[in-house]
């Protein structure tokens, strides 16, 4: 039973997948290159064979949607990176807290086009279960046998940071020792239309992209006890309402890598708009930069995501 009381929270594992690669190194290299995405419509992940990366749920893989595949894959990588050997047969209380603003859209579109447009009265029973929003967290728990709290937060563009903050609260308050957390999104026909409808200024639209970024958050004591690799500590999580618009059109050449991962707009310019998954990618890249560069040991990195109306979640990271 996890102990009660505030606990220090550290990041001990990272797993990523996006059109830009499946490793943290590839993502850091792209930041270093400062190359912007082209203004084409969207960037999809290609050449990814889900069945190659899914074991327990292999038979279900073809019925799942891309965000489910990405999440399972990235969660597996993050657990491995953290040195956590999960045995689905054993009881554990590892939590899964995922964020996705729109990941259910593709499955709902697929299902409803049959019902609404094709007048199919009783569609296949295998399609409907995937239309719920929490498949991403549910499939991770089933694949790896994670029996702790299991939540999907659907908080639009700040879903990823909302999930990491929720996982932080869970560990900080002593309710869990380890949480798998992050964000995932997938492209769909309706997604662009929904984003356009939500956009206050159409000029703000960047090319859409997809992927998943998963982190292992862990109680410091637990991480030290098992000699886990530690990327950095999450030193603070803050919620506030400040009507500050994110900085736009910054010259990427003038920004350091660490500044890029702290600027939401710059990050999206490099990787495309992964919507609710973007904040989780920003946190992952910041954590990797902090661990890689000892010079940054004294820096506190703050990643703040604004929902456009002023509501902001910020997460502060620092080296141990």
């Amino acid at each position, binding site marked *: 039973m996890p102990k009660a009381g505030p606990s220090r929270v550290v990041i001990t594992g990272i797993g990523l997948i996006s059109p830009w690669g499946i490793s943290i190194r590839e993502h850091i290299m792209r930041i270093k290159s400062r190359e912007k995405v082209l203004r084409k419509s969207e960037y999809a992940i290609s050449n990814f064979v889900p069945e190659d990366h899914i074991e327990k749920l292999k038979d279900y893989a073809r019925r799942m949607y891309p965000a489910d595949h990405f999440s399972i894959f990235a969660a597996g990588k993050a657990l491995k990176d953290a040195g956590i050997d999960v045995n689905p047969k054993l009881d554990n209380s590892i939590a899964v807290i995922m964020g996705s603003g729109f990941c259910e859209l593709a499955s709902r579109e697929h299902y*409803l086009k049959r019902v609404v447009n094709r007048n199919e*009265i009783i569609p296949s029973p295998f399609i409907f279960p995937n239309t719920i929003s*929490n498949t991403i967290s549910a*499939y991770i728990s089933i694949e790896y046998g994670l*029996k702790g709290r299991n939540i*999907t937060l659907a908080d639009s563009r700040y879903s990823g940071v909302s999930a990491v903050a*929720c996982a932080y609260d869970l560990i900080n308050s002593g309710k869990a020792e380890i949480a798998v957390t992050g964000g995932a999104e997938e492209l769909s026909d309706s997604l662009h239309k929904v984003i356009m409808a939500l956009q206050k200024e159409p000029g703000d639209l960047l090319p859409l992209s997809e992927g998943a970024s998963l982190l292992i958050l862990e109680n410091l004591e637990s991480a030290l006890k098992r000699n886990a690799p530690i990327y950095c500590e999450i030193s603070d999580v803050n919620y506030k*309402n400040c009507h500050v618009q994110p900085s736009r059109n910054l010259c990427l050449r003038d920004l350091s890598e660490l500044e890029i991962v702290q600027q939401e707009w710059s990050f999206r310019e490099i990787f495309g708009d992964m919507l609710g998954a973007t904040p989780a990618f920003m946190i992952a890249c910041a954590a990797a930069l902090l661990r890689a560069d000892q010079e940054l040991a004294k820096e506190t990195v703050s990643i703040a995501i604004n929902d456009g109306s002023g509501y902001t979640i910020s997460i502060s990271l620092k080296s141990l």
Partner: protein
Amino acid sequence: MRNNQRQVAITGIGIISALGGSIEETYTSLREGKTGIKMSNPFSLPDYDMMLGVVSEDTLARACDKYNIKGEDNSELFLLCSLEEAIENAGLKDYDNKGCLLNQERMGVIIGTILGGIQSYELFLGGSVDTQRLRSYPLFVLTQKVADRAGCRGKRQTVSTACSSSTIAIGLAYEEIRRGQADIVIAGGVDTLSRLTITGFESLQASSRELCRPFDKNRQGLNLGEGAAVLILEELSHAKRRKCPHIYAEVCGFGSRADAVHITAPDRFGRGLTATIREALLDAALDITEIDYINMHGTATQYNDAMEITAIMNIFGELAHSIPLTSTKSLTGHCLGAAGAIEAVISVLSLWHGFIPPTVNFHEPDDGLEIAVAKTCICRELNTCMSLNAGFGGNNAAIILKKYTGE
């Protein structure tokens, strides 16, 4: 005070469902055991005359008129009507009007929903509305609307964990206040009937064309419903300081665990729910003998009810034969992401008025599962109540409420 932790009071409640558009109408229907489920076909789907718990147009229109609410999607209307009722009976409006402004930075909103503005999305796909209507679809929009209307500037979360969504929303709100991160959190849930869910549960052969019969030996499946419920959770001393008109109950325990077994089917040994109940009891520092009543998930599907009874037997043992339990889904229908919030409000009413609502249509228990299902309304003083929910993905959640005694 337990472990010197902050106590969490429920100071406002609002509800809309097939039982009515207000707390008062809901209470009357519960006491009379009058089900809101009837034969309907709201989307005129061929061969889809179903038993559904529909919020009538008249009920919705009256609630919207009362609180001057306008909107495009029923999910938004349901939620805002419930919000206004909860704010009204929490005395938050009066408090604001007297110039004693609340610290909005310490007011949060956590809403549970599966479907968001699904009706708008379905209309868009059918070609009957334009792209702009899609603004009402995303799930977080509902949380944003509640925060804007109630003037909350603190944490916002939109929980989507299938049918346990709003129980988890309430649990997270309770933890937020206990940790000292907020003084007030508006928690609730909403979901509307839709083509997606009506045809979806039929495709799984999980819905019944007859009135549902939770825990009955001859249960055939669930009846879908719709609605919303909102609870104002508030730190107890904060509520006392502002002399709020009601302290309906306290939230004193929360647990949530995953089955990690199957995407739709529950763990047949009820292990996830068992761990969930155990966690909630531990959190509340209560013994099994101290639970007076359990509001069950009780969907009336074969698998859910069997799993739930197994979990209850695992925890309560012999006591399971005597603790009264009900499934109020036999009255409201299964309101999916709103179910947890609706059942939490019903549980609050049970504690407040001292009664246990009936499980209508329950006649005969399953062989060997001798549990104390309340068939008729029981009037009894209650001190504690547990409300359970479970959902697709193997999500389980339990909250424990207790009567406020002034201590």
